[in-house]
């Protein structure tokens, strides 16, 4: 683990991606972004992320599919879902699969911080700042 936990942000919408990245960095984490789940899965840094914040609906692989891919590989990286279409069915599905959070866009900053906190706590990583 690096001293400042690395948080991965996946969203096909650039404006949301960049804003979320800025928020995460303002909290003192380092962040990196991907425009698609496929890009993230193909990334060599896949195993180094402390937490993944991912959009649900994306062209190509969805956030839900990403979750099952990771779990199938035995990767237990905590996942926080953000979505413009909060559907109860999907919320239940991702929670059942162990998601840390399921936030509707536009999400509340505090709610996001709580989720990140929980995610890093699960992994035993202390908050680096807030």
């Amino acid at each position, binding site marked *: 683990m690096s001293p400042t936990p690395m948080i991965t942000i996946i969203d*096909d919408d650039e*404006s949301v991606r960049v*804003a*979320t990245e*800025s928020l995460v960095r303002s909290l003192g984490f380092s962040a990196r972004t991907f425009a698609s789940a496929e890009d993230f899965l193909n990334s060599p840094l896949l195993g180094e992320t402390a937490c993944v914040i991912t959009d649900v609906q994306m062209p190509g692989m969805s956030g839900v599919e990403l979750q099952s891919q990771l779990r199938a590989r035995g990767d237990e990286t905590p996942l926080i879902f953000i979505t413009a279409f909060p559907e109860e069915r999907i919320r239940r599905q991702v929670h059942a699969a162990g998601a840390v959070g399921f936030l509707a866009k536009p*999400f509340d*900053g505090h709610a996001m911080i709580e989720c990140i906190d929980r995610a890093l706590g699960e992994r035993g990583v202390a908050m680096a700042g807030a």
Partner: protein
Amino acid sequence: MYASRDVILNDKPTNRWLMPVIAALLAAAIFIIDTFSSLDMAIAVLYVVVVLLSANYSDRRGLLAIAGLCVGLTILSFLVMHAGNYDLSAVMRGLVSIAAITVTTLLCLENQTATQSLRGQADLLDLTHDAIFVRDIADTVLYWSDGAERLYGWPREEAVGRPAASLLKTVFPAPLADIRGELFRTGRWEGELVHTRKDGSKVTVMSRWSLQRDEKGRPLAAMETNSDITERKQAENALNQTRAELAHVTRVTTMGELTASIAHEVNQPLAAVVTNGEACLRWLGRAEPDIGEARASVERMIANGRRASDVIARLRALARRDEPLQAPVDVNEVIDEVLPLIERERATHGVALDVAPGERLPVVLGDRVQLQQVVLNLALNAVQAMAAVPDGSRRLQIATRIDGQEDRGCVLIEVRDTGPGVDAESLPKLFNAFYSTKKDGMGMGLSISRSIIEAHGGRIAAAPGEDGGMLFTVALPNPGKDASGDSLPEERRP
């Protein structure tokens, strides 16, 4: 029918009994003088006056009978006067008289034939339902048909002699000088006029003008033939109104289909605004505030706020129910404005987008929102049509170009997809109302698109694409094509 002859031939009904009496008295007088006076001259030549008078009220046969009678009276007088004493000069006088009567009769018969054919033509003009009138160069009405009486309510005697345009309060579709210019140049003019009847009501007419010239080619008079198209115009207006309403309903329905995409399109920048705001506060709230990061966050907030309001402005324009406009429209801009609305739909269907805007396209004349509706409909259809196609081979191509010669050809919008296409049987039905290849389609989109494009003077066609899928082509008329040099469409750009 007498009335029309009055105007053309000035033949008063009172002559019908007066003239024969005068002619008969005259004939009797000539006979008496010819027979019983001893004047040494060809009195019988005066019978030509009887023939001339009779020509006005007799038909062909009657005139021949009268002429025959005059010849007979001449011979009778001769026989009475010169019984057995045939001197040469007397015989010559008699023959001259008979020749004069004969020649006059023949001339009258010829004249009568011409007059009858004129009368026949005038009667024919009165048979038509159209309002016909003839006016001289000063616009004074010379002739006014039965149809004109019926259409406008002014009887012939009130209309003749009055200036036509002020009598009918004519509303011309173009400056009168231009219309007269065309009439004098080409000898004819055709267009729609609004006239006011005697009772004050308005009537829209399809008007055809023909110019009559004298033998030196100088304009003499114009004949105006007007047919009443008021009802047709009203029906046309009602149809246009209905079409515009239907277009609006279909547009709003399409937007309903896109609600999720549109909500996303607005929500996404709003989410970014909120998140940037949160980030900004945290950058400022640090022990050592990071002004650079905070500023960048605020700048992104502004940009995202603008993006959201742009989407809303476009939606409002699409949802508005306006009368269709005729304004210069850049089709490339239309496409740029529509694409964000289907962006989410396209992305979730995994469709690749390929836009090839044509360069130096002339602007077209039309209604921007309605044209957006057509492009929106074609693009959305294309995206939805490719749902069954395997991932990676879904491609939406939108291109604009000029068909054929620059500055002359139509402006084309081409929308291609790589979907399963449409079988040959369904192809001709695609544009029919309530025909849909989609399971839950209403079948209005393409039908409305066609009526919109046709109302723009263009056409829309569907054909199988070269590499499978479908190709929809919209062709819009190029207004620069017919315009004169001083009104190039580019100059009308705002």
